[in-house]
């Protein structure tokens, strides 16, 4: 089975995000970058399939700048077989990204495409289902676990009030969320092996973004905290404040 896992290099979720004063731009100076956490779940799902089906190959694919090679090497160290960097600028416009990825995926004709349900920076949650729609692949989103049997994949997807079980015929696009696929750490052997695995770089043209950023702001600040008395003594006062001042009870 041929699997493509799409990943994105994003600022660490622990990073403080600063707005450049007077401009709709984020200051990313000194920010540590990671592979988007959801993409790590997707990669883990792909690597586990390799462990079960020996003939499976996992290709990791990203759209990004040269720095993203670091994330691809990391994916190779974790167990992916080969990597492709589509060198171009990332965009908030999900469909622009999806078109670039879909065109590469279409050349490779994989059985399965795995992505994180969303990227840890722009949180758009669009690219997976868009790639599926562009290529005519079946698609399941927000998947916590899945099983492959022959040419059918059974997915458990998280919905508001529980879990939905959906069966798809391959080829399929699956977007993965936190669930069964807790990512592993790279082994020393894996890191050494990754250096010899193929990493292809290809320059791509990313369509112009049709989503235009016009401003950035921080969430509104709160008026400050009202501390009530410690322990049991404060509870009556707290309930009274919630009822009469905040009007939420």
């Amino acid at each position, binding site marked *: 089975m041929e699997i493509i896992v799409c990943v994105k290099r994003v600022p660490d979720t622990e990073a403080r995000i600063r707005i450049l004063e007077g401009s709709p731009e984020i200051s990313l100076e000194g920010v540590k970058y990671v592979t988007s956490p959801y993409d790590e779940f997707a990669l883990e799902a792909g690597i586990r399939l390799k462990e079960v089906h020996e003939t499976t190959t996992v290709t990791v694919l990203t759209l990004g700048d040269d720095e993203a090679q670091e994330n691809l090497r990391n994916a190779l160290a974790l167990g992916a077989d080969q990597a492709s960097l589509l060198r171009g600028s990332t965009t908030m416009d999900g469909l622009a990204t999806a078109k670039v990825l879909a065109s590469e995926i279409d050349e490779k004709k994989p059985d399965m495409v795995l992505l994180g349900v969303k990227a840890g920076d722009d949180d758009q949650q669009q690219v997976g289902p868009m790639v599926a729609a562009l290529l005519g692949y079946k698609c399941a989103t927000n998947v916590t676990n899945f099983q492959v049997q022959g040419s059918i994949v059974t997915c458990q997807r998280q919905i508001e009030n529980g879990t939905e079980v959906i069966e798809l015929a391959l080829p399929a696009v699956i977007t993965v969320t936190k669930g069964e696929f807790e990512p592993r750490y790279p082994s020393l052997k894996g890191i050494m092996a990754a250096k010899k695995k193929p990493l292809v770089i290809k320059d791509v043209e990313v369509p112009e973004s049709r989503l235009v950023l016009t401003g950035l702001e*921080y969430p509104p600040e709160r008026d400050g905290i009202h501390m009530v008395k410690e322990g049991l003594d404060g509870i009556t006062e707290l309930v009274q404040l919630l009822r009469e001042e905040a009007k939420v009870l």
Partner: protein
Amino acid sequence: MSNLLVFVEQREGCVSAVTKEILSAGAALAKELGVEIHALVLGDKGIGSSSIELTDYGADQIFLAEHPELNVYLGENFASVIASAIEAGNYRAVMFPATAMGKDLAPRVTAVLDTVMATDVTQVEVIEDGLEITRPIFGGKVLAKMKFRAFPAVISVRPNVFPPEKSSGAGHINKIEVSLPLTEGLSVEKIENLGRQNLDVSEAKSVVSGGRGMKGPDNWKLLEELRDALGPEAALGASRAVVDAGWRPHGEQVGQTGKTVAPKLYIAVGISGAVQHLAGMGTAQTIVAINKDADAPIFGVADYGIVGDAMEILPKLTEIIGELNAGE
């Protein structure tokens, strides 16, 4: 380019709460623009019964796509029917709920129509050359304003942000022809419910959220009791630490690798307040922090705080709130 369209999400045959919120917001926007607000309903025969409710929330035109196979949500089917309806209607913007269904569906529709989409929108404004939306990025650490260079603009709207407000629309009913794509090799088997939790943490009006300070999964019954005392629109949340520890399911996790929530009341119990968690609940209307550590970062974002042992505070808090609600 004129009207606005709202996709009507149904759950067990009823119009979902978030759909009413979006219709309300859309109706106000349509009024400002001097255009109509349309509602699109997909389902089996009988979905027309929802039209009264839709009219009450401002729908001027209601489009019904009836087909037995639309009884169950399948992204491929729904996207195809919706894209055809949009193409027939020449819309300025199409609004979906930012729910599991909406987030599965709206990107597919956007791709089919080759247009542009913004996810989890919390504000929509009319500006000179169209619409400007606000949406959180980086898990809620920053709010971004954006405008569109393609139409129709596809927008998914975050639940619990816009208040549902009644306004009567013209409510004309139109039936549309349905032709479904081939969905061979695709089936939804079943939907499992988690029991009492019919309400998701992302859609609840009140959230009781627990962290490491709860000391162990057995103590969650204290949080469940508080949730029950708060009424049927309350749900449980959890910090990443307790989800990672296996105390609670991921569906309850609030924060950057979980869900972003915007309830009226958020009670954080024994949660110290990692930056990812604070981003995920920062837009709650009122935040209450209960923690035994007076220096916990959660107190930096809360409106009300109480320092103390959650095991002692929770039963008493539940009792007082329970009495209050029983007295009404």
